[in-house]
């Protein structure tokens, strides 16, 4: 009798262990980036988020009215500033048209159809943010129906926000750059005078609210406030999207490798409307 009970207990333990393994495996599979959304999952996600979108309409309307009022004040102040800068505009215009012509000439010379910086835009509204605490994601109201694909860059007017990690028919999940995923290293360039220094954006520190750039081997001095942008290499991010500005530079103990701390350009809390970018090169 006692032996039988002991055997039963062993089976229970074995079953629990097996269940835990299956659950862990299942969650690991579910949280993989770029996983194809299951049909039922996509339908429920779309329906749930559509309901949320309808419920959000009044709050969005109030927020828009407040934002518009703020924007009006901001535009007036900017207008005053711009009036002073107006005289330089004609010089800049001629420089821009010259640069555009040069770029077109160089493209035709190299027979390029699209450069890394050319992109198409899709605007979207944020439906929900970071629910579940750990995931660092946003849900937007554009999906595969609007040609949104996994890996595409998501930006705000301030700079790079993250990338599309999964899509359903009418909604998509955006994984923020702050997620700190070790597998999501973004290739970046730092503007030092007329040249660029290249590196990899690795982690995000929640305490200091700074990104960390590693893998910089050049001995070039990196000034504070240097702009950090995407290179367009390695992933689907177009080139030249602003990530932030350099806040601090640290050398390792052997004074060989640099670690650069970057202050994000994007305010991650003020993300009601976003734009999904697609590199023309990928089309």
């Amino acid at each position, binding site marked *: 009798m006692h032996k039988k009970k002991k055997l039963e207990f062993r089976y229970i333990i074995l079953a629990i262990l097996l269940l835990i393994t299956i659950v862990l495996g299942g969650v690991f599979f579910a949280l993989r980036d770029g996983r194809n959304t299951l049909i039922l999952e996509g339908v*429920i*996600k779309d329906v749930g988020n559509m309901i*949320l979108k309808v*419920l959000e309409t009044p709050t969005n309307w109030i927020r828009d009215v407040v934002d518009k009022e703020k924007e009006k004040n901001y535009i007036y102040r900017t207008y005053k500033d711009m009036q002073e800068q107006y005289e330089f505009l004609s010089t800049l215009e001629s420089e821009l048209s010259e640069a555009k012509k040069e770029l077109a000439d160089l493209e035709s010379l190299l027979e390029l159809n699209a450069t890394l910086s050319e992109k198409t835009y899709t605007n979207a509204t944020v439906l929900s*943010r970071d629910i*579940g*605490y*750990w995931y660092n*994601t946003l849900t937007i109201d554009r999906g595969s129906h609007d040609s949104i694909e996994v890996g595409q860059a998501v930006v705000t007017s301030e700079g790079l926000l993250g990338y599309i990690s*999964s899509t359903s028919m009418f909604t998509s999940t955006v994984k923020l750059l702050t997620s700190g995923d070790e597998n999501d290293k973004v290739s970046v360039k730092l503007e030092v005078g007329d040249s660029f220094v290249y590196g990899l954006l690795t982690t995000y520190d929640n305490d200091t609210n700074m990104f960390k750039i590693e893998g910089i081997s050049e001995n070039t001095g990196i000034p504070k406030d240097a702009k950090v942008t995407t290179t367009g290499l390695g992933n689907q991010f177009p080139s030249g999207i602003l990530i932030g500005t350099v806040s601090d530079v640290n050398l390792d103990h052997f004074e060989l490798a640099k670690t650069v701390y970057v202050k994000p350009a994007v305010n991650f809390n003020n993300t009601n409307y976003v734009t999904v970018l697609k590199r023309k090169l990928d089309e």
Partner: protein
Amino acid sequence: MYILFMISLFLEGLLSNIIPFYSYISMLLLFTSIVLFYPYAKRNFKKYMIVIFIYGVLYDLIYTQALFLDGILFSVCIFLLHYLYKFFKTIPFSDFWLLILMILLYRSFGYFVLCMIGYLQFDVGIYIHSLLSSILFNVVYGILLYYILKVLYHKKILKQLI
């Protein structure tokens, strides 16, 4: 019960757009309502477990990519609550102590699972922040919900909802 859970589910989505990232407020409105509703549903525990598993899965499908993680976490927490409730029910404000305990357990289980599969890296600071930020707002929501449920129960409206 279904209406209450649905309201909490969508309220969580609505409020997520207002609350900033990494703030001292982290919402678990659906989980809070599930824990607080337990005393009214414990007679039909098996049915309640099925319902909360479905709501957990629904929560994952709508808001996260985790498919069924919250379905399992909700079920495990309520299963533990079922046994702990007997020991706690003599203590004053037992519902609130249990709510805090369940929130801590839910956050801890979730974090450990995500660390075990390599999705997150363990960081004591982040872990403690997640626990502290989860308690404050959800206990306030819990107090509000507790009295609403009590009123509904006395007016015999709640019985129709179960």
